[in-house]
Each structure stands twice: as structure tokens, then as C-alpha cells.
């Protein structure tokens, strides 16, 4: 069943690899085989060690023990550049882009085009990038600065960059976490085209349905250990999940359509911004989850940011419990009981250099302060531990720096931050980005509990099944307008897609 029984030399062979960090054994005697021409899915819970293994392959960390073989030849990977030279190309879970440079400059950094041997030729560079995009079927502007791209587009830049190398082994660490279904299609298509008898792909994802679509085999890690490998065609998500978590996960079904006639907690009327939004109106009631669907750039994030005062709104009215309010910054929103969890975890979500518990109480710190302004560290620790347990955040202690957590566990910390604060209206923007299947269910349960406690929850998500799974009602956006608000019972993937593409001729990455 495993690759070692296979007679052919695998493209990449990993054996006996261990890697420890202080307090954490991230990898323990892990093995893995990537065969020629295959897509190998690598799965496991948050913190299972997937990214760590990939960082070893990329030359960012050196293993404590273990061997790597490329086409049977043993390797010592000395650094990122060396990995590149060996033909290992990687898309990291966290972006590694230079926001001040253009798309083309980012893609070809270190491989600049020069004219007359001295001067940079950015036109040639742009041309090369354009050729690459044409070949890959991506609608990216080579001369746009990366800083201005949405998270999804940045992801596409990373993908284009990885594919621009003449790589033999392509590693993708959760490339679709920030992508929409349409973009996922584009990506999977790219992967299929990349695959040749000389190449192989390691594909990390928490989205089970993708595995069936793209992978040939699936390798599972649990708690830093190798659990097993299955041929995709011969297994099903259920088996994979039980290998991952060591228990069965039973997802609940879509919520029964209980129309919420409670008072509108938040009403938004005719919201418009200079850039994008045009007359967005909706309300969300106490006790309900309002899902937001739409394509990339549809403006869902922008609606959220405008509501909490992170961006200026040019027109429109916001009412909290029927009372008109003006919100000019997120602090005022917080005072009114509105919280916003950003989709951009690294830039706008976590404090990487601070501890898990400090991050968890950041939004609610005032609840942990005496009248004289002293912080109650004991209670902070108690809360921190409570959420570490509740969300099963994998960390040696609540004092661990968030930087040292795996991506999915960082996301859990951000969620905990908002669960710890008593808000009436919670806006979650892509809350399950990078979260493993098991934990997703737990988070759904928590969101539902919040609603049941009488809070109004807005959930923006690019995964339609998730929106359908959780929302009482679903708002759909396209090009800055609200095109529909549906009851869950009336919604299907098909009609949501339909509304999401109203007025829309472009606006996705795919051409």
C-alpha cells in the first residue's frame, strides 16, 4: 500500500524525519513518498506537522534526523536557494511576497531581466510575466503592486511564482484556503497541467472534496507522526478523517429554517463606498447567522470593514438595534458591540510576537483590568486556557508566541479572541480559513451557540458548502452590490453562483 512497496524509485523519498521545537515535537519519524507524475495529498489536523515537513524540504529548517532522496539520490538541502536549484518549488501557507514590488517583480525576484547587462528591463519582465499568466490562464496585471491585491490575488501570485520555476517537485501548502470555488477550479486545472512523468506535486489542504478531485494518493499525519497512505480512488473522506483525527466526525445538517423575527440587531441601509460598494442594504437579527457569499472582490470584506469603521463610507446608514449610529473606527464599533474578525490573519488578525493568551484577550482586555488599570493575569490565563481547550488549540502553553503556532491554530486564536468578547454583532470574515475538518465542525457549533445566545452573526465565506451548512439566511454580493438575500431553504450552490455572477462579466482571477 505504501510507496516503499513500490518497485520504481520514487521522485521524492522522505524517511525517518524528526524535528523538534522547544516544548513541541513537530515531526517524529515521518516518512513519505512522492511518485513520478502524481499528486500526493498531505493531510492532518492543525498542527500535525505538515508545514514543518514542507519547510524542511524547502531548506528553511534542518531536520533533527532523517533523510531525503530525490530520484534516489540523497540530499542535504542547504537553504531556500538550494532547494530551488534542486527543483523543489514551494508555495508557503503564509505569503512571502514583497508588498511594495509589482506582481512581475515579485515573481522574478532574483531572476531579473537586464538590458545591456546593467539596467533592469521591467518591460521585458512584465512581458515575461504576462506570458506566464497567459499560459496559466490567470488574469493578473504584471505591473500592479502586490500591496493592492486582495488576499486571493496574492495567493494567485504565489502560485504563478511557484509555477514559473522549472520545478520537479511542486509543494503547495493550503493554496486554496483563500480561494473561491471558481479559483479553485483554475488552480486544480493548473496542477493537472503541471503534472508530467518527470514531476510530482505535494498538495496540502483541509478541503476534503478537493482531494478526490486532484490527488492520486493521500498521506496522513497525526501529531507529527506518519499514520498512513491511501490511494484516493480506494478510500473516502470518512476514512481519511478518521485517520487524521482518530475518531469520527459527524457533520450536522443544514439548519432547519427557523425564520428569525427577532429585533434587527444591525441594519445597514444604502451603504456605498468610493471604490466599490453601491447601495448595500440588509439587516441581521438577534439569534441569526447571516451568511455572505460572493466571488473574490465582490465586496463582502469591504462591507464588513465599512460597518466597523475600518474604511470610510461615502453614503449609507447603520442602525444598531434600530438606532442610527456613526462609526468612524473599529473602537467605536466595539463600543457598540460590533466585532470584526478579519480575513487577513497575518496582517490584521494576530499579534505574531505576543502570547496566545494575550491575543485571546486582546479585544476584551478591559474585562480583565481592575479599576486602577492593573491587569488580572490569573484571569487572563484562565480564559486563555479555556479557549485553548475549547478550540483545541495545539500549543504547549498559553504563553507560547503565536508565531510558533501552525497556521490553523493561529486562526483558532483569532476566533477565540472574538468568542472571548461579549459582542452583540459578530462579523466573521472567512473564519475557517486553514482550519482542519474536525475543528471546523467545532467552530460551526460555537457560531451556532453564539446565535442561540441571541447574538447576530454575519459569516463571510468563500466556501459555498460552508455558507449553506451554517447560515439561516444568505446574502449574495456581486461587484459591490447585494444581488440577493435568500432563506437557507431556498438556497442551492447553483442559485448562489448565479446571483454571485449577476452584473459580473469579469472579476475573477480565471479568464
Amino acid at each position: 500500500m505504501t510507496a516503499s512497496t513500490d518497485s520504481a524509485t520514487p521522485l521524492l523519498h522522505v524517511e525517518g524525519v524528526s524535528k523538534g521545537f522547544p516544548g513541541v515535537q513537530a515531526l517524529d519519524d515521518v516518512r513519505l513518498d512522492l511518485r513520478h507524475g502524481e499528486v500526493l495529498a498531505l493531510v492532518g489536523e492543525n498542527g500535525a506537522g505538515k508545514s514543518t515537513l514542507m519547510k524542511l524540504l524547502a531548506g528553511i529548517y534542518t531536520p533533527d534526523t532523517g533523510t531525503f532522496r530525490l530520484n534516489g539520490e540523497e540530499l542535504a538541502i542547504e537553504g531556500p536557494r538550494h532547494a530551488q536549484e534542486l527543483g523543489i518549488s514551494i508555495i508557503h501557507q503564509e505569503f512571502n511576497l514583497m508588498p511594495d514590488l509589482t506582481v512581475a517583480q515579485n515573481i522574478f525576484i532574483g531572476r531579473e531581466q537586464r538590458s545591456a547587462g546593467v539596467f533592469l528591463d521591467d518591460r521585458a519582465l512584465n512581458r515575461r510575466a504576462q506570458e506566464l499568466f497567459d499560459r496559466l490562464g490567470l488574469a493578473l496585471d504584471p505591473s500592479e503592486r502586490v500591496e493592492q491585491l486582495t488576499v486571493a490575488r496574492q495567493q494567485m501570485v504565489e502560485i504563478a511564482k511557484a509555477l514559473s520555476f522549472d520545478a520537479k517537485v511542486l509543494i503547495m501548502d493550503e493554496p486554496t484556503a483563500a480561494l473561491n470555488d471558481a479559483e479553485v477550479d483554475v488552480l486544480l486545472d493548473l496542477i493537472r497541467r503541471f503534472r508530467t512523468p518527470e514531476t510530482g506535486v505535494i498538495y496540502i489542504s483541509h478541503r476534503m472534496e478537493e482531494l478526490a478531485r486532484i490527488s492520486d494518493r493521500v498521506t496522513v499525519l497525526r501529531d507529527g507522526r506518519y499514520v498512513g497512505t491511501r490511494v484516493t480512488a480506494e478510500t473516502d473522506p470518512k476514512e481519511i478523517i478518521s485517520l487524521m483525527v482518530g475518531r469520527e466526525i459527524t457533520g450536522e445538517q443544514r439548519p432547519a429554517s427557523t425564520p428569525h423575527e427577532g429585533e434587527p440587531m444591525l441594519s445597514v441601509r444604502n451603504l456605498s463606498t468610493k471604490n466599490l460598494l453601491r447601495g448595500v442594504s440588509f439587516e441581521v437579527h438577534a439569534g441569526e447567522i447571516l451568511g455572505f457569499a460572493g466571488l473574490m472582490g465582490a465586496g463582502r470584506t469591504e462591507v464588513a470593514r465599512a460597518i466597523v469603521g475600518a474604511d470610510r463610507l461615502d453614503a449609507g446608514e447603520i442602525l444598531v438595534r434600530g438606532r442610527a449610529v456613526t462609526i468612524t473606527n473599529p473602537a467605536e464599533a466595539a463600543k457598540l458591540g460590533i466585532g470584526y474578525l478579519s480575513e487577513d490573519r497575518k496582517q490584521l488578525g494576530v499579534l505574531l510576537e505576543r502570547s496566545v493568551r494575550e491575543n485571546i484577550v486582546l479585544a476584551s482586555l478591559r474585562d480583565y483590568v481592575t479599576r486602577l488599570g492593573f491587569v488580572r493575569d490569573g484571569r487572563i490565563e484562565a480564559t486563555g486556557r479555556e479557549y485553548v481547550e475549547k478550540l483545541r488549540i495545539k500549543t504547549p502553553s498559553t504563553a507560547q508566541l503565536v508565531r510558533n503556532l501552525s497556521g490553523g491554530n493561529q486562526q483558532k486564536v483569532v476566533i477565540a479572541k472574538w468568542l472571548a468578547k461579549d459582542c452583540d454583532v459578530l462579523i466573521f470574515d472567512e473564519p475557517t480559513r486553514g482550519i482542519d475538518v474536525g475543528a471546523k465542525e467545532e467552530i460551526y457549533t460555537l457560531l451556532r451557540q453564539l446565535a442561540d445566545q441571541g447574538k447576530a452573526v454575519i459569516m463571510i465565506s468563500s466556501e459555498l458548502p460552508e455558507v449553506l451548512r451554517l447560515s439561516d439566511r444568505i446574502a449574495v454580493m456581486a461587484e459591490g452590490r447585494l444581488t440577493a438575500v435568500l432563506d437557507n431553504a431556498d438556497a442551492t450552490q447553483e442559485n448562489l453562483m448565479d446571483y454571485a455572477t449577476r452584473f459580473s462579466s469579469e472579476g475573477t482571477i480565471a479568464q
Partner: protein
Amino acid sequence: MSPTTTQPTSGPTPSTTAFAAVEAGTPRLAWLRGSVQQLLAFASLIVIVAVFSFASPHFFTTNNLVSILTAATVTGILALGTTFVIITGGIDLSIGTAMVLCGVMAGVFLTYLGWPLWAGVGATILFGALIGFINGVNISVFGIPPFIATLGMMLIAAGLSLVISGTKPIYFTETPDFQSIMNLSIVPGMRFPLGVAIFIVMIVVAAVLLSKTIVGRYTFSIGSNEAATALSGVNVRRWKIIVYTLAGLFVGLAGVLSASRLSSAQPTGGMGLELEAIAAVVIGGTSLQGGKGSIVGTVIGALIMAVLTNGLRIISVPQEWQSVAVGIVILVAVYLDMLRRRRT
């Protein structure tokens, strides 16, 4: 481990990561964590002290150690306030000349206006806070980058000191007690000046503020990720103003102490003091990128500077060599500190 080139200066170095992880634990331990980190800088300090003690019998005497503390007091107090500012990711270049201006204002309040001692001293410290407040508003409300905002204030304060004083020193003729604030001997049979005791009290105050109060928490949060802090509903604008105002309070106090020491408000000077204070902060392990730092570190940094200056004089190193020596020692001390952190 990974080569240095793969890590951003501001970002995660494997070393600090590893280190912090070792230290991470209960909140009790967290208290210690900062201090332990500083123990490394502390080791440099000890080595420097040992070398000087060995080189001259006059170095490690009570009198001389008190002299060192006295010399460290004013810069040290400035550095305490600056630590907060730097941890938010900001900088304050105005502290030197603002301190001079506060001294002049003490002269105005006490001598020109004849206010009683407590009122004049209180007003001076508040005046320092006002300068800090204006810095904070310029930075936070008007969006002027801290470097520019405080550079502007540096120049304004330098000029105003001259204008207000009429380019003359102001003497504290109305309040002869004023000079006791810095100079009063508080330990019988020893020359231990009140000013040094005030410095020590301020160290404790600053340490508690930074690690035990909400100001300190937000100081770290803002420096760690300002945007994320703001999106968490923290009124970042207001807290930044508070931090600069707090730094201004320290500046006001430093102004009182330095004027008290000289029994006069000197309207000149102050330029360059900001670099000394910032250097103390940074030598103490606080990162100019924000988000990291400690009061213990700053105090050690200030002491390293003061001990070096004093010790080189005690062993009569020719003056032109003194700054060379200070420069080299700073480089070596910080480098060794790096090395050890990396190893741990």
C-alpha cells in the same frame, strides 16, 4: 538551524523563538521571562564593571558607584519613558530639548512666577506631559510619522527654551529648596542623593506600568501589530497619545531633576541626549521595530553607558579614545548578546 538570511531582522529569529518557548510558562514565569532575557545584557554589564574594578582601585567604591548612578539618573529617566514609545514602534527625538524646555519652565514657574515648590514642580511635570501629548496628537491624529513629529518638536523646544528664558540661565532664587530634589542626601553618613532614589522609584513605576497594567499591554499590542490591535476594537489613537504623554511625564521629571542638580535652568543643550536615551533602550534589548522590550533592559542599557563613560575616565583613557572604546564595547556587547540568544 536556518541561516540568518532566511529570517527578517524584525521577524522571527529561530533563536528568540526557541528562547521564548523555553521561558514560556505560567504568568508567574512570564514576569521573569523579560528579566531573564535581560540577564544576558546584564552579564555584559557585570563584565564591564569587573574589568574596571580590576583596572582601578578607585572604580568600585561606594562614592564612585553613587556617582555613576547620579550620572545615569537623567538619561535613565528619559530612557524609561522612551521605552514605552519605542515598544509601540514609535520614536521620540524631542526628549532631550523638551527636557531642557521643562527645566526652563520650572524656572518660570518657581522664579518668575514665584509659585510654591510643589506647584512649580507639579506644573513642570505636567508641562512635560503636555509636550508629549502634542507629540501624540501630531502622530496619532494628524498622522505625522513619529520621527518627523518629534524631530519638529525637538527643534521647537530647543528654540522655545531660548526664547522663554531670554537665552539666560534661570536661577532658583525664590526656592532654594529646589536643588534638594536631586541633591539631598538621604542616607545618613553617605552621599546618596534623593535624585537617585527617585530614579529607582521611577524604574519600579515604569516596570509595573509596562508589565502589569493596561497601558503596558496596549503598548505591546500596538507595537506588535497596530492594524490588528485597532481592528480588535482598541482605540489605538487614544492609547498612542497616552503613551507619548506618559513619556512626556518622564521628560518633565527629568527636566526637574537636571535643573535641580545644577540649581539653575540652562536653556541650551539637550540635543544628543535623545540618542543616548534611545541607545540605552535599544542596548537593553528593546526593538525599534516595536512589540518587544523591557524596563529592566533599559535600566541595564543606561547603566552600561554610564559605567563605560565613568570607568574610562577613571582609568584615564585619553578622551579621544574614550568614544572609540564606548563604540566598540557597545558593538561587542550587543553582538555577544545576539550570539548567546541564538545559542539558547
